[in-house]
């Protein structure tokens, strides 16, 4: 039972959804000056042994996946799956409707042949591959996520403009409020605040 819970926690962690700790403590949010500093900080935080952390930036930062120790995205497998399903649907739809359910002789052509079926098979392959890519991306990201404790931070609003943030979750094994804050300060964070899951975040710069 506990392993299932642990697995669920890991899956949610891969989406950037972390549990709180000690009733309301969610984590520590640190702001960095620019993408270069954020990249360095992420690398150091990973090297310090943290697992449950994430960086937030207005645009993707080149090299961040490696700095954070994240592997390749799984979205591609869902695309392939959707594409195969779409192709199968295209073949089945045209074969079953025109050769099985209601065969009609049109100009003596075969009821089903692969050549005239290609355009519809192709379109359905693309359609289902694209839709499964997008739905899969949302699912792997745990979106939509209307509630996020980070939204309690007013400063965090800059994250979609020109703010560069690193968040370490309180549920990380290595998390300790004092030492984690110190680590982030040593890494050059310009502003550090504690995020609590209930009520407004209290700034502790």
């Amino acid at each position: 039972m506990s392993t299932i819970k642990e697995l669920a926690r890991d899956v949610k962690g891969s989406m950037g959804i972390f549990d709180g700790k000690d009733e309301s403590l969610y984590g520590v949010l640190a702001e960095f000056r620019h993408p270069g500093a954020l990249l360095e900080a992420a690398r150091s935080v990973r090297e310090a042994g943290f697992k449950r952390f994430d960086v937030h930036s207005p645009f993707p930062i080149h090299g961040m996946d490696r700095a954070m120790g994240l592997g390749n995205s799984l979205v591609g497998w869902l695309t392939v799956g959707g594409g195969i399903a779409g192709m199968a649907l295209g073949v089945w739809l045209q074969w079953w409707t025109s050769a099985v359910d209601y065969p009609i002789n049109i100009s003596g052509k075969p009821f089903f042949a692969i050549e005239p079926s290609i355009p519809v098979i192709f379109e359905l392959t693309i359609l289902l591959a694209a839709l499964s890519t997008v739905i899969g991306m949302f699912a792997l990201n745990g979106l939509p996520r209307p509630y996020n404790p980070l939204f309690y931070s007013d400063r965090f609003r800059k994250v979609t403009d020109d703010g560069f943030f690193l968040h370490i979750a309180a549920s990380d094994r290595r998390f300790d409020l004092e030492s984690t804050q110190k680590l982030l300060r040593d890494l050059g964070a310009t502003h550090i605040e504690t995020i609590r899951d209930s009520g407004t975040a209290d700034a502790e710069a």
Partner: protein
Amino acid sequence: MSTETHHKTAVHALDDLPLLGRDLSFHEVTELVAHHTEKKTPTAWFGAFALANAGLLLLVAMIAYLFWNGTGVWGLNNPVGWGYAIVNFVFWVGIGHAGTLISAILFLFRQQWRTAINRSAEAMTIFAVMCALIFPGIHVGRVWAAYWMLPIPNQMEMWPQFKSPLLWDVFAVSTYFTVSAVFWYVGMIPDLATMRDRATTTLRRKVLGFLSMGWTGANRHWRNYEKAYLLLAALATPLVLSVHSVVSFDFAVSIIPGWHTTIFPPYFVAGAIFSGFAMVVTLLVIARKIYKLEDIITIGHLEKMNIIILLTGTMVGFAYITEFFIAWYSGVKYEQYAFLNRAFGPYAWAYWTMMFCNLVFPQFFWFKKLRRSIPFMFAVSITTNIGMWFERFVITVTSLHRDYLPSSWDYYTPTWVDVLTFVGSFGLFFTLFLLFLRFAPMVAIAEVKYVMPQADPHYYDDHGDGHAGDQAAKLARSSHHAS
């Protein structure tokens, strides 16, 4: 805002051509784009919107008139069974192609200049395809049976005829619309989040919060997001090429002289991109001026689009000449007649309009001065779209109006309903486009920031305020940048 992150330097792309018109900080890019959706609605917008709405009303009125009376109100006659409806359909679908080309194909080719224009071009695609989809819907005569185009179980227990190119078209265009809309929305999520975080009213915050799905720019999200975006681009690329190929099958799979040619798929695709880019230029020349986006959508971007117009225009012109040659070379009398009749028959006026607009006028873009002249490119973008409309008119009508037997010859003239329906479709297009300009981020904010030099984490290594690397690494990097 935090001024310490605003590192100002010459904004240069890898090829050393400026991507932005002047040095901008991340915040300035946000501000330039987002504030247009936040400010008070300008009076001029209401004026334009009223005009577009009048066009939309005209379209609705014409469709209502058509439904009440039947397709007899159109100018169709016995040999010419396809008229304005198919011409307008192909015209609008073609325009859409530029948006997908910019968003998907240029993305795969790592053309970073696309970030300034891809959002508005994608919006144009979606609205153009919506305009296009109206015409097959209303041209069926018995509109209450339009759903027969789709494989929906019905009381007759009959299915659509999957061997017909017209049905392929239903699948191609509806897939195209769906994928384009999804691609557009996915691309917009980070920017909707930007607008959410700037929102000052509760309503704005709630609506944008809903639409942006709780996006926080988390790297765990960007990882999947970027992969999904790349895959969507990879899927949209063959899709956009297939759509106009399938549209061309509507003609090419038939056995009508003038239609039954294998050159049609590539020739239609080139024409679609040609007309689509012209429409993007038409729209952006106006929008960048009104919204003061000259620093983001620069003259350099417009010039690049004009080069694509030159390229595709030349391809289209080459296809016109090839068609003519093949008709002669085939030795088939009917084929030869169809083409001579196009150029010198009763529709010669339409043919030569097409030739001048598509083959001749874009050739002026060989001159750099003209490529960079706003009035000139605006004029050519208009004539290109006129020319491309006439191309579809010429292909459709001249091939039909003289059947094999002279007793089946006639001259097709559109009625006022035909013309006003087409005019009205522009009303729909501009209504949607104006709503987009008013309420949506018209430039991909996150993507523009991503291609700015300050977005590169190594940019800071040489500027002394990051964690500077060692000297050797610095040298290696600077030689890399120089190469």
